[in-house]
């Protein structure tokens, strides 16, 4: 019995290693400790260059970044903190937000595969956080380089909580795979899946399948067609989410019927 299950396991890993991806994750840079995988990937691009699909990952990120000024905190070895390098020269600057959309969809697919049970409500929270049962499990930070009106390279930083179970003050708003009862996963196994799904969506983007990307993004968008509570400056209001524009603006329908689009800088959810 033991031999058989061992064989099955090895066999599966080999298969996976062969089948996994064409380019995402084929070139890996592991850093035992770094301030930010995004910063390191950008230095690599600027100093020695690196091929599309390069992954920079660490077990200990000491100064992970969220949105400008915010930080992303991850415990050593428990979670995924990695950066993917892609070179989407084919993408028009006005469509840069599609990089956000496909990253969110890849994370959605990974979590849907891992958390099979229907009790998990997995959603993409505008613009690209991933929620499970209304708690944040993953975040994305994307840095692009523009030259002559096109994208040189894009560094896609991804944080995903895998095995961390203590979140202190954030416990009410943050979760992890372990906290959701999935204790079989570890950062490496989840990363491998992420590479596969990211590549799938990246190739769709390369094939200009924008409509399919939009459809899927909206299908999993947190609060779509529902009345939600928002805050702009100091004012709170209810509005219905119509969707997210090509540029990434959140389109709301106010209670008086007025339609308006919002930038992430001016609007936040009241959860």
């Amino acid at each position, binding site marked *: 019995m033991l031999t058989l299950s061992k064989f099955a396991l090895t066999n599966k890993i080999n298969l996976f290693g*062969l089948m996994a991806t*064409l*380019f995402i994750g*084929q*070139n*890996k*840079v*592991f*850093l*035992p*400790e*770094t301030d930010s995988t995004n910063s*390191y990937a950008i*230095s*690599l691009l600027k*100093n*020695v*260059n*690196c*091929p*599309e*699909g*390069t992954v920079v990952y660490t077990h200990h990120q000491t100064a992970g970044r969220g*949105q*400008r*000024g915010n930080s992303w905190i991850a415990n050593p070895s428990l979670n995924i903190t990695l950066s993917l390098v892609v070179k989407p020269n084919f993408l028009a*600057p*006005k469509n*840069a*937000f599609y*990089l*956000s959309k496909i990253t969110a969809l890849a994370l959605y697919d990974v979590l849907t595969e891992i958390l099979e049970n229907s009790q998990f409500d997995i959603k993409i929270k505008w*613009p*690209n956080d991933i929620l499970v049962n209304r708690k944040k499990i993953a975040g*994305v*930070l*994307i*840095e*692009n*380089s*523009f*030259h*002559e*009106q096109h994208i*040189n390279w894009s560094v896609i930083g991804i944080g995903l909580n895998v095995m961390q179970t203590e979140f202190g003050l954030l416990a009410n708003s943050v979760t992890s795979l372990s906290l959701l009862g999935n204790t079989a996963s570890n950062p490496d196994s989840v990363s491998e899946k992420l590479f596969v799904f990211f590549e799938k969506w990246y190739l769709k983007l390369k094939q200009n399948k924008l409509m399919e990307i939009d459809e899927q993004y909206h299908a999993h968008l947190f609060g779509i067609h529902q009345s939600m509570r928002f805050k702009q400056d100091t004012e709170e209001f209810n509005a219905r989410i119509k969707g997210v524009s090509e*540029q*990434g*603006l959140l389109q709301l329908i106010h209670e008086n019927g007025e339609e308006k689009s919002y*930038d*992430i*800088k001016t609007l936040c959810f009241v959860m």
Partner: protein
Amino acid sequence: MKLNEIQDLIKFVSKSGVNEVELETKEIKIVIKTGKQNGPVMVQAAPQMMQAAPTQMVTAAPVANPTPVTETKATPTPTNTGADESKYITIKSPMIGTFYRSPGPDKPSFVNVGDEVNAGKTVCIIEAMKLFNEIESDIKGKIVKVLVNDATPVEYDQPLFLVDPN
């Protein structure tokens, strides 16, 4: 991986201050360990016994020549701000977003008036919907004016910098 690329990588790692870097491609696995902060750099390179990749496409793309960037032609911009500015060239925003002159709060500006820039030099960040877009100069010259205030919104094609190409 070519020898000079490995040398570049070693230089880069030793400068970056990390203790250890592992790089793995289809052909090669490299572990670079830096002894101390300024200590010597050790390299262990082991050719890997890998199964043949199923298609040629699987191999990583060759690393491009690290020397940046070919000289590019500049767009002369009609300006109505006076005759002596007509020789200047503008760097424009490729997108709608928020203009930042530095990589983060409390960090120095990418460029200041009087700085020489080359094609490929990052001059600012435009943030749009949580995408942080580094904008590179596509011209060589001297910054003579910053046309937008830090942390303010910019439109598509809005001029950001005036550059003297001489």
